[in-house]
């Protein structure tokens, strides 16, 4: 059985379109914030793990190396993880393995992305496509998502209005989040009238280009109990990776995320959760597009498979609903600095601790789940955290 690992503090900063700070300055900002929130000094940190999804965004390859001094990792063990967008959750999983291995008692997890240093996000994204079968046809992100969204809504009968409601919810929730880039008071009609990027995905179904960082401090069980009377434990984690050959996958349907269901099952099995709909109190779900929140709610078992439309129609995922999702605003409202989507985990922590401020949901939160998604419709990483 693995050792227990706790989250004992997180570090936040405002997400913005184009931060004036360098990567190093951004990382210092959240690291210091995490140390302050945890009443620790950098000397207490035994090791640092970094997560950043795509170096071509900031144009500094191997960008971990510029973040060392600012992370408290100077002359310490460090590592750098990158699993596309799922970096957001696979990086705290990496931190977990560091602590659970018994080698380190306190590990700083720092995720960052400076997406707006480049002049064309599309030029960056084109670097990730297979050069022989995909890159020459000029696939881009909007149509990549259109392909997946169409398969999804075709399979399950999801509607564009249901997608729009997710956008209204998340951008509206972001109004209460002081770190948010894109809080907006929208109506479903506003979303429906926004221009199509690729049917059924419209402008307001998407998330913005964002600079930002997040930090999470993980502690071994013994140290966590010394530091706090109310530790928040990592209870479960899971990951799944599907084939890069998305046009020839075994399940024959881009609309069904086998790899995400798999990641969720691992995490729930480890956490001893058999019925997530009743046992999960709160969720922060990776939502770069509205339909991705819906797919992920299903894969995470927060609603039945194909039931994400009803979930939003019935208000279940609203801030005041039975199973609130992304009360922080999610990627759509808070901003989407790929790897720093670890913010999803930070907000689960805040909700459990009752520190979510104006984003706090009006219910007890003991157990929460967060996920990350990335690659060529490929990766999912899931973490369940909570009190005993």
């Amino acid at each position, binding site marked *: 059985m693995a050792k227990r690992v706790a989250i004992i503090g997180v570090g936040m900063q405002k997400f913005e*379109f*184009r931060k*004036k700070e360098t990567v190093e300055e951004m990382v210092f900002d959240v690291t210091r914030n995490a140390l302050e929130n945890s009443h620790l000094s950098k000397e207490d940190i035994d090791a640092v793990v970094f997560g950043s999804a795509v170096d*071509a965004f900031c*144009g500094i390859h191997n960008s971990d190396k510029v973040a060392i001094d600012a992370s408290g990792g100077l002359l310490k063990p460090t590592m750098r993880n990158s699993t596309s967008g799922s970096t957001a959750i696979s990086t705290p999983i990496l931190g977990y393995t560091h602590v659970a291995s018994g080698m380190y008692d306190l590990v700083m997890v720092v995720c960052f992305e400076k997406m707006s240093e480049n002049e*064309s996000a*599309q030029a960056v994204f*084109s670097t990730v496509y297979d*050069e*022989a*079968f*995909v890159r*020459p*046809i*000029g*696939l*881009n992100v*909007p*149509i*990549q*998502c*259109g*392909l*997946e969204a*169409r*398969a999804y809504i*075709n399979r399950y009968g999801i509607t564009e209005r249901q997608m729009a409601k997710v956008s209204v919810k998340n951008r509206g929730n972001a109004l209460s989040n002081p770190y948010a880039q894109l809080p907006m008071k929208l109506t479903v009609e506003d979303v429906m009238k926004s221009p*199509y*990027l*690729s*049917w059924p995905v419209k402008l307001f179904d998407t998330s913005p*280009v964002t600079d930002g960082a997040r930090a999470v401090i993980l502690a071994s069980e013994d140290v966590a109990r010394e530091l706090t009377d109310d530790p928040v434990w990592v209870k479960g984690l899971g990951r799944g990776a599907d*084939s890069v*050959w*998305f*046009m*020839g996958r*075994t399940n*024959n*349907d*881009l*609309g069904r995320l086998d790899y995400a269901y798999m990641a969720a099952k691992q995490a729930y099995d480890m956490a001893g959760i058999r019925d997530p709909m009743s046992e999960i109190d709160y969720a922060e779900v990776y939502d770069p597009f509205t339909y991705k929140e819906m797919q992920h709610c299903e894969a995470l078992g927060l609603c039945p498979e194909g039931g994400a439309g009803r979930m939003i129609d019935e208000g279940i995922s609203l801030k005041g609903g039975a199973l609130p999702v992304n009360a922080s605003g999610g990627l759509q409202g808070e901003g989407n600095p790929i790897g720093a989507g670890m913010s999803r985990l930070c907000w689960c922590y805040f909700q459990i601790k009752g520190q979510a401020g104006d984003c706090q949901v009006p219910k007890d939160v003991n157990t929460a789940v967060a996920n990350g998604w990335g690659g060529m419709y490929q990766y999912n990483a899931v973490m369940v955290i909570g009190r005993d």
Partner: protein
Amino acid sequence: MTKKKNEMTIDGEIQIKYKWSLGKAGERFFTELRDNKKIMGTKCRQCGRVLVPPRIFCEECFVEDMEWVEVEPKGTLMTFGDSYFSTDGKRLEEPWMLGIVRLNGSDGGLIHFIGEARPEDLQIGMPMEIVFKDKREASIMDILYFRPVKD
């Protein structure tokens, strides 16, 4: 989006030229495509699955026990996407369309443009066929596009 004022930047670029290997499987696939207008897959002698794009190994059986087989230049539309923006961000008059087509006689498929159709002509599950380019150069662009099969 506009930049904040007074921000000082260093302007530069990353520019790297590549010659990407097609690999063992890719060389055969693109040679047959160029020379014979054939779509080739690799069939696993153990599980019988036919991989397109072809690979030199079966990822399920984890063996390199494959034979080359020709698959049909026709198949089923698994999903499609349209966009009024080109990849370099320009607004388009006519929609640009991509589709993923599962090819008959295979367990795989290809992604490519869709032509000779409007978005409203398309639906998931319909039969599609490949239109080849006349002058071919051993590239995925030797395929012009998929189009709906004409009855």
